[in-house]
């Protein structure tokens, strides 16, 4: 049904493929040129992802995808983030894809998933800040619906062909499918810490036919909630990749930078700091493993997601700022690539809830005193 595979050979194959792509394709001149531009990711690279089938990794085989699991997807983005080339997979091929996977079966859903897997359809989920459902209402017009309102945090909106819009009906939120260029849709942009675009969506009386209601109330919210948690686990993998890369950059620098006629990596104060970062990375590896091992069961998924996302967000943001410190002044420059990784880490740490937010969820689940 929904395999969260742990097929080691497939994971190894995806890892190798991603590592090759990172080796061949990473170009931080291009990374810099794409900052504060639309769509903010490389369309040629996205086409390569599509050819490799990576938009369909999490789409079931019956719907035209590869039908692999979160572990495979997490492996993929963990490697791709080392070259800062994972987008638009997280927003489109994970979050939006999983919302569709968990939506009730129907012709529209099947068509979308098949198109997604083929790389022709690029959906994005419309949310408000802090993973809230957007302030959008849907009025039943008898024949079709009329949607109005705003969604202030739409990751992956740039380059999206379709928007998945949760909108309030009489009995809760339903999930609607809108072409990104439908009349009445306007998108403006905020810039994330890494200078990639975050969509802010305004719907002004957008009229849609009945068949674009992908999921009725209850089913829509359940699908979104589950997809958010699954994406948290995969995003934890992306954060771990950034963590590993920044730690490796820092250790390398400590092994070449000399002061007082010594390599700075020989100073015990710095060694202990580096070890603490390594330990934090090891904790993140364990937390991601915990998350992946419990993500398939919807009853254990929320804890799995918050543990993985919380720890990996903490690790990435901590190592980001300590990496600047350990690089010294060069780490504070625009010229050095470290800053690109730091900003990406801050972006992904905050997205779908940083460590503090995940702790808040932990407390609200009654687990602090358990």
């Amino acid at each position: 049904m929904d395999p969260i595979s742990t097929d080691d050979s497939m994971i190894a194959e995806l890892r190798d493929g991603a590592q090759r792509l990172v080796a061949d394709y990473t170009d931080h001149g291009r990374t810099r040129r794409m900052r504060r531009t639309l769509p903010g990711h490389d369309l040629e690279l996205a086409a390569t992802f599509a050819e490799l089938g990576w938009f369909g990794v999490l789409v079931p085989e019956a719907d035209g995808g590869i039908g692999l699991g979160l572990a495979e997807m997490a492996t993929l983005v963990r490697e791709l983030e080392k070259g800062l080339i994972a987008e638009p997979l997280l927003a489109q091929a994970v979050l939006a894809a999983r919302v569709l996977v968990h939506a009730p079966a129907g012709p529209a859903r099947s068509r979308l998933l098949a198109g997604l897997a083929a790389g022709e359809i690029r959906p994005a989920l419309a949310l408000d800040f802090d993973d809230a459902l957007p302030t959008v209402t849907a009025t039943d017009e008898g024949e079709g619906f009329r949607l109005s309102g705003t969604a202030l945090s739409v990751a992956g909106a740039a380059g999206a062909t379709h928007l998945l819009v949760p909108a309030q009906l009489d009995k809760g939120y339903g999930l609607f499918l809108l072409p990104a260029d439908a009349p009445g849709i306007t998108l403006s942009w905020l810039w994330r810490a890494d200078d990639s675009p975050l969509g802010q969506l305004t719907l002004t009386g957008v009229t849609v036919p009945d068949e674009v209601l992908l999921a009725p109330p209850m089913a829509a919210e359940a699908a979104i909630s589950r997809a958010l948690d699954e994406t948290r686990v995969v995003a934890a993998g992306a954060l771990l990749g950034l963590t590993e890369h920044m730690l490796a950059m820092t250790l390398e620098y400590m092994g070449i930078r000399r002061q007082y006629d010594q390599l700075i990596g020989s100073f015990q104060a710095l060694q202990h700091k580096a070890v603490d970062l390594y330990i934090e990375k090891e904790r993140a590896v364990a937390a991601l493993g915990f998350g992946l091992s419990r993500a398939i069961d919807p009853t254990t998924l929320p804890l799995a997601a918050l543990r993985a996302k919380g720890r990996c967000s903490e690790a990435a943001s901590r190592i980001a700022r300590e990496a600047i410190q350990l690089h010294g002044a060069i780490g504070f420059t625009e010229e050095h690539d470290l800053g690109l990784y730091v900003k990406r880490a801050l972006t992904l740490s905050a997205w779908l809830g940083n460590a503090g937010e995940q702790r808040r969820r932990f407390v609200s689940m009654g687990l602090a005193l358990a």
Partner: protein
Amino acid sequence: MQDWNALSDEAFRAAARQFIETHCPAHIRRGEEHVRWEQSQGWYKAMAAHGWLAPGWPVEHGGMGLKQAKHLIYLEEWARAGISRVMEQGVLNVGPVLLAHGTPEQVAHYLPRIVSAEHLWCQGFSEPGAGSDLAALRTEARIDGDEFIINGHKIWTSGAVDANHIFVLARTDKNVRKQAGISFILVDMRQPGVTVKPIVTINGDAEFAEVFLDDVRAPVANLVGGLNNGWKVAQSLLGFERVWAGSPHMGRQAMDRLVRVARLAGRDRDPVTLDRIAQLQIDLADNAEMYERLAQEIRAGHSFGFEVSTLKIVATETYARITELTQEIAAERGGLGGEVPFDEGTADLLRDYLTARAPMIYGGTVQIHRNILAKRVLGLPG
């Protein structure tokens, strides 16, 4: 003879639990690190009588022959039941070291006497000038006929006040690299020249002692692993047990007390307190996950390396931080010693806080383990 390894993990755990519940008296189940022999000998002898004393030893020597995975389960059950360690050096270190490095005569002589509780062992490694830098030790052993004559000063010797034997690292060659001139010698403490002086800990316990050795004699036949080979012998006994130092068992017991004190102190709905407890709960859970991953490797028969240093740091520092928060959320009562009264119960806050300092020091301080990781895992320059 029961083949424990043939049982499923669950069945073995149940058997261990039943043995403990049946035979372990309540007064050594208070989670104290060490208790005196007069309180603990009944439990030691019960374990010996029922074959549960020496989990890691081979069956033919009176052990349980447990594979490491089962051994870990047994240790987990001890921890769950809050059982104190009772004169563990013979079982934990002397037996394995003799089986690995001893002569057949040493094995035949000493192992049965550990099982029978005739020999109670302590470990003579640390010295006033040789703690983390153990190889700097200055205790000397010179050969006089067929005996060593040993002079020196050992310190932080757990169980020395009750022990009648000590295994000693002593310098037998001063003209070589410091690690290369050390020998591992078994010494009977029941002779003139051995003076044991208890050290009272910050907690008021007398679990440690100083051991003074003045012209103390041991037969040359008590040398283990060859002359000047003691450093290697000593390294080998710091093996498997180090895995256990990274388990979350101490942290879990401390967390139970933290949650209890949060309720006693009326802080169980305070958002600030809940957030900080949540952080520690998550840290502890990640410690458990890291430990479980290592345990799985061990179960699969894989070897382990420096990840034990990582786990040791994580486990001991997490444990310590839990006791720190426990003391802090008690507010003014955190400044009280002994059993502190709350409206609906009492708790000893200071003792846990102080006890948690020790694991960050013994078995290599957490700073020494950071040095090890920096050089051996991160490859940073020396």
